């Protein structure tokens, strides 16, 4: 016998505690199982087609197909397990959940009947004083009512126990299924990483930060206008304005570096482009000029995935990557030494804020950067020169990034020589230009990049750009 769901679960519960559609559960479980079987069958077929010794497709076109089919067979097999587990879990849960529902429905019906009986047989009010004693018939009726009431009470209590046990059984079955699915997902290689799962809001976060930086920079620029500056000085707020400009510079650099690390990670997992990363690096180098150009001019991040996939797909072999990493490291170390020598030999040109790379720490870089930035701020002519060189560097990075997209790390590496030359000009600009600061900021960013799992090739790419002798300019 099938019990239908009661319209109300009173007096045992205020709402339905066993709500699942168990037919839908069974149906979905069967669908998942069917999908798992299809995946298995498809994986076998793809393996057969991609087996070189197979006669399934022997031709030049077949050879092209093999390379893709083999890899796909492995990857869809990973998806098979999650569907198999989910299908089995749902199917297994459906029957005990259904039985629990039936018991719960029956218990509710029993409880409602008992409640009605209790209401109908509830003891009446005590007889008024002076009223005649009850007749024998009235006494018998009262005794029957009391008996009925008592039995109904027992029935209600029993129904409540049955109901609670059924609800427990229902939730145990549901939890068992849910736990089985979640456990399978926990070890699933197809599960997104934390970064992939949170990519969208992180990207939005950095976009908002970039807009804030742009707004602050606009205010700082207005403050720096000759007339406005004089006015601010006139009312005694010059120091405050200077502090604000410094804050904007540091904040903008920090945001730029954060964005660079974020975009580097995005490239490594196929969610970003080389072009975006290259703009970031230019942005770091030019106090936001490159960053501003990007955010004002385009939504490059949005068209990210395709080119990054190609770049990742065409990436060099592990051995080649290792070789690049070694080369990059050696070049970086050599250029660092060259840079330090240059700073030592040209103390006047390097300016008071210049620092050497050896034993640098983040705080050291920051202090040098601030000092160099303050020195640069006192020279409009040098700032103009820096801007011109930055534009050249930006152009070079654009060329490099265009070359890197859809190509591979080898292309990025070889083309980065152009970038290196222009960055060399940046670094060699006269002492009041914060060229050292720029390199320092970039190096800081690259330290972060280099620490990110799996993307050391980006460090190699970037180091080729940064690790250059100042004399190159």
């Amino acid at each position, binding site marked *: 016998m099938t019990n239908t769901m009661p319209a109300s679960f009173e007096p045992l519960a205020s709402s339905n505690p066993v709500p699942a559609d168990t037919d839908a559960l069974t149906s*979905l479980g069967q669908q998942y199982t069917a999908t798992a079987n299809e995946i298995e069958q498809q994986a076998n077929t*793809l393996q057969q087609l991609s087996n070189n010794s197979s006669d399934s497709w022997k031709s030049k076109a077949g050879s092209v197909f093999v390379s893709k089919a083999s890899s796909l067979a492995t990857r869809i097999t990973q998806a098979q397990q999650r569907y198999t587990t989910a299908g089995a879990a749902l199917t297994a849960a459906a029957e005990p959940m259904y039985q629990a529902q039936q018991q719960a429905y029956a218990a509710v019906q029993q409880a409602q009947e008992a409640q009605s009986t209790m209401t109908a047989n509830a003891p009446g009010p005590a007889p008024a004083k002076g009223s005649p004693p009850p007749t024998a018939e009235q006494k018998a009726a009262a005794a029957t009512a009391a008996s009925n009431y008592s039995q109904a009470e027992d029935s209600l209590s029993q129904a409540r126990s049955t109901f609670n046990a059924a609800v427990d059984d229902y939730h145990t079955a549901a939890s068992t299924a849910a736990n089985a699915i979640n456990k399978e997902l926990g070890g699933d290689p197809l599960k997104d990483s934390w970064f*992939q799962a949170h990519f969208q809001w992180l990207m939005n976060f950095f976009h908002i930060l970039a807009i804030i930086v742009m707004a602050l920079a606009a205010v700082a620029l207005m403050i720096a206008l000759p007339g406005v500056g004089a006015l601010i000085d006139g009312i005694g707020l010059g120091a405050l304005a200077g502090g604000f400009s410094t804050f904007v510079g540091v904040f903008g650099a920090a945001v730029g570096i954060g964005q660079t690390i974020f975009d580097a990670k995005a490239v490594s997992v196929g969610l970003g482009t080389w072009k975006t990363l290259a703009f970031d690096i230019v942005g770091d180098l030019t106090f936001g000029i490159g960053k501003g150009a990007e955010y004002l001019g385009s939504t490059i991040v949005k068209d990210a995935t395709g080119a990054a996939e190609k770049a990742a797909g065409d990436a060099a072999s592990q051995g080649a990557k290792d070789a690049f990493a070694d080369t990059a490291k050696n070049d970086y170390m050599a250029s660092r030494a060259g840079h330090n020598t240059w700073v030592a030999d040209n103390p006047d040109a390097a300016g008071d804020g210049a620092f050497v790379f050896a034993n640098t720490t983040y705080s050291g870089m920051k202090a040098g950067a601030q000092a160099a930035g303050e020195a640069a701020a006192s020279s409009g002519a040098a700032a103009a020169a820096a801007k011109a060189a930055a534009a050249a560097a930006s152009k070079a990075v654009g060329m490099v990034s265009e070359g890197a997209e859809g190509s591979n790390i080898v292309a990025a590496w070889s083309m980065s020589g152009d970038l290196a030359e222009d960055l060399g000009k940046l670094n060699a600009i006269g002492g009041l230009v914060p060229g050292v600061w720029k390199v320092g900021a970039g190096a800081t960013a690259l330290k972060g990049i280099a620490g990110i799992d799996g993307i050391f090739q980006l460090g190699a790419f970037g180091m080729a750009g940064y690790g250059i002798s100042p004399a190159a300019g």
Partner: protein
Amino acid sequence: MADIQVDLDMLQSTANTLTTLINDFSNAAQIVKDADINDPTIGGALNNFTGDWKVRVGDLISSMQTVQKMANTGYTDYTSTDNQLAQQMQQAASGSSS
């Protein structure tokens, strides 16, 4: 020239099955929604099931679409070429006999 040997049935079957799987993967969330299980515990697990691999399943679907297109193109082009060749040979045979 190398021999050409193609199991056209297998190619067609591969393309069709991949199409089905692409639909299953692409519409995983909608399938759960349509099923309307109406249980919060299992519903939460199914949300994880459909939502915890959005990026990687996107990559997987892209790869499946590539292979599906290759299999489908292989099947239709081989079939079409064979039909055209048969037609031309039929015409040639008719011409020589008349």
